[in-house]
């Protein structure tokens, strides 16, 4: 699964820490997601989408082979 959290963050101009505080996880978790090392739970994905005021599919997309 790929995501564009980093891009969305840049658009909204917020840091990893600010996003982490908003969705209630550690900054390391946000970083691991941006690097594609961690696939978030549905709950976390929905929270992130809410932070960027958009749909989950806009931020997280399936890749070939998923």
């Amino acid at each position, binding site marked *: 699964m790929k995501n564009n959290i980093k891009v969305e963050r840049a658009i909204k101009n917020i840091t*990893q820490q600010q996003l982490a505080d908003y969705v209630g*996880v*550690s*900054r*390391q*978790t946000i*970083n*691991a997601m941006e690097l594609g090392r*961690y696939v978030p739970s549905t709950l976390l994905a929905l929270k992130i989408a809410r932070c960027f005021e958009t749909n989950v599919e806009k931020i997280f997309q399936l890749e070939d082979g998923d």
Partner: protein
Amino acid sequence: MLFRLLHILNLGPIKSELNAFSNKNVKFVCHYVINTLLLHRNLKLINMTKDYLFPSQFQKLGWILLAPFGLLFLYLCFTTSGSRVELNVPVFAIINNDIGNSTHWFTFIKNDILDEITYIGLIVSLVFIAFSKEECDDEFILEIRRNSLVWALLINSLILIFCELFIYGFVFLEILYFNLLSILILFIIKFKIAVYKLDKFDEDEE
């Protein structure tokens, strides 16, 4: 190994009782147990808010407790039973069995309780360290925790198989004794390294 254990525990009568069970009954009991466990697990999946972890302060308490009990453990390792301090007190035993003697059920005996205190202390402190929340505990840490636990179980089983194949005699019992703790120790090492790496090799944000 199992037969040796049965012999040690003197469970001959129980074994013959088990044989008296018909196959059908055994099957029913097995199904009952399996289905109960499955139901239990499925209920867990619905209620995922419970994580069975201690509050994060317990971790510090665990490390503090580990120091005295770890030293006691080393003391027990490097001394023989004749040459060390003994704490002989009467204790209640569900089963008591010495080599060469018969087995006694539900009796009071006199026993040196230093090793019991050490083991219980070690287990409690290791459990506190292993199963307390991290300062920032989220779902990613939970996943690392789960992976580390599976890893520790697998490695521990491999070590056990290795010992089972190549180690014989009384040393084997001592290794089994240590094996009870090694699973927690392996888990703690793996988990702490994973969390440390997460902090250390974290890519700096721009």
